[in-house]
């Protein structure tokens, strides 16, 4: 395998931006209701106030939904990169830390207590996510250091525990059980600007890993080697774990649990442009956003006006792509 076969860094970023833009355009232009590009441009110029159905659809339903899908896809992908490279385990996804199940538990409480109005649901989900992170964090602390291995086990264990608690709540919830089930099932349906505002909160956290790109590269050799080369490993772990947790909690709180993207996009991007984080993080960000956008586009268009759960589509889109790249063979 020669290095020439790998897309070079600059080319990679450029390509990613192009793909990102194309997917963004497609997501905005296509949908169950077709909007011609001319109309699209017109609506964009005219601004959000318009009363034509097309304008309403564009400004109130499609645009925020697409932005949300892109933000969530980006957040989950960056979280996936961070966690895969901290745990040095290719099967890691953003949900292993238990944050997602904690967020789900928070949302479940919200539903059961009839606090389903948006700010409450998000707040409870975020509280739930951080509460589980705190539990898992404390469990993993050994002599002032975070034992990544223990963190992984604790996260998975807490996930199972919390899922069981949610199941109990569901059974006792009676008629609210449906609401809980639907919330857990990841979806962008019915989401609009309020959710986008929450998701924007994750944007600065997506940039954080870029400030630790060198440290993350060195950490690929293991924590001990990184210490020997001068990296303040504990500090890097703390910052990166919290970042991944925020990204995951925010994503889950606005759109439920959507699998596969956070696991597979980092691998796909690594196969294409290599593991160096200055390239990997921004391209995974763009790639995850684009993938989630396309997945949502397909989920709302393929069987319109019915919608397919977006988690199913991400798997159907991402898995073949991933297998193809694996077979093409990259070290």
């Amino acid at each position, binding site marked *: 395998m020669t290095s020439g076969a790998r897309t070079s860094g600059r080319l990679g970023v450029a390509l990613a931006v192009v793909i990102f833009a194309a997917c963004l355009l497609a997501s905005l232009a296509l*949908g*169950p*209701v077709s909007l011609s590009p001319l109309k699209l441009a017109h609506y964009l110029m005219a601004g959000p106030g318009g*009363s034509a*159905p097309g304008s*309403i*659809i564009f400004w*109130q*339903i*499609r645009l*925020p939904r697409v932005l949300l899908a892109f933000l969530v896809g980006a957040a989950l992908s960056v979280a996936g990169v961070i966690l895969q490279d901290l745990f040095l385990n*290719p*099967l890691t996804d953003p949900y292993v830390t238990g944050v997602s199940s904690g967020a789900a538990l928070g949302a479940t409480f919200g539903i059961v207590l*009839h606090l*389903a109005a948006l700010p409450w649901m998000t707040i409870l989900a975020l509280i739930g996510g951080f509460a589980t992170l705190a539990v898992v964090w404390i469990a993993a602390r050994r002599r002032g250091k975070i034992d990544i291995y223990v963190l992984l086990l604790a996260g998975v264990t807490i996930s199972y525990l919390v899922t069981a608690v949610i199941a109990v709540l569901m*059974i006792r919830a*009676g*008629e609210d*059980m*449906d*609401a809980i089930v*639907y*919330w857990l*099932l990841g*979806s962008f*349906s*019915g*989401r*609009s*600007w309020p959710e986008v505002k929450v998701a924007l909160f994750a944007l600065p956290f997506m940039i954080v890993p870029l400030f630790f790109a060198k440290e993350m590269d060195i950490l690929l050799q293991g924590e001990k080697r990184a210490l020997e080369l001068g990296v303040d490993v504990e500090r890097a772990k703390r910052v990166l774990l919290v970042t991944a947790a925020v990204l995951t909690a925010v994503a889950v709180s606005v759109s439920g649990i959507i699998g596969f993207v956070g696991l*597979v996009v980092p691998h796909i991007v*690594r196969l294409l442009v290599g593991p160096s984080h200055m390239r990997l993080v921004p391209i995974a960000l763009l790639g995850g956003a684009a993938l989630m956008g396309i997945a949502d586009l397909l989920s*709302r268009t393929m*069987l*319109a*006006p*019915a*919608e*397919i*759960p977006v988690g*199913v589509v991400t*798997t*159907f889109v991402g*898995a*073949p792509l*991933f*297998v193809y790249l*694996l*077979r093409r*063979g990259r*070290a």
Partner: protein
Amino acid sequence: MSTTRSRRGLAAIILLSVLIAAVLGALALSGCGSSSASAGEASPDAFASSGPVTVTDDSGATVTLAQPAQKVVSLAPADTEIAYAIGGGSKMVGGTSYDDYPAEARSLPKVGDFASPSVEKIVALQPDLVLAAGGIQAGLRSKLEKLGMQVFVVDPTTYDGVMADITRLGQLMGLEAPATKVVGDMTRAKATVQARVATLDRPATFIEVYSKPLMTAGGKTFIDDLVTLAGGSNIGTQAGDGFPNFSSEVLVKDNPAVYVAMAGAQSSPGAIAERPGYSGLAAVKDGKVFVLDDDLIARPGPRLAQGLEQLAAMIHPEASPAP
């Protein structure tokens, strides 16, 4: 990730997950609505109050009792309502945790929730007849039948189907006369509504079963039948049968004149009107956004008649008596 073996192993795992996801996806796509079976028929030799009874239920199975049921357990709130409505309250020995109508039903011994009823508790009550809904698991049904109980499934897809179920249950419980009366009331309600709306236009109507994700009642559901009977045109059928997710964009495009949300979705007309994209809907502009108690249109029982009347009043207020 650098060895061929780990790469292949990973590929194998991905393929397996895709397969499982495909299966799950297919199941999810088939919707969560009840699959309707062919409507059953009343057996010609069903006697009035004694002697053997045989009916076919909504799942197509034959239900036979040597004599009308004396002890009945219900596994669905709708079935409980029907049983009480036809006067069978004294025969009820057990119900679910969700039974809330009529009030007496709340004091029935509970056999668990409909998702996972306790077989032991059911057996302990020694019923001869168990009333179930469409989603009952095959394993549970055969277990109950092996233990000597008969299971009657109520899973209608139309208003008429509900009435047929009420009739059949009347036979099974030896309460034909009261059942006939209930059915008669329902028939009259239906006829009245139909008469009112017969000559009127059919406004585009949307039934919201759930808000996030947006979910509606599609074809082959009795809710859909109610909308048609009430003089509306259910736009949800475009999305298929059962209870599919519905695109908000198509909602805006189709611009329903009437928007009815089920109360379980925790909505109010004001909140609904403020949802993104809803401001342009005819239903919102004309103030025709309503919230309906789901028990009146989601439970296949006698109160469906009330649901029908309320629905008609929402869709065609001009033809309905003042509230």
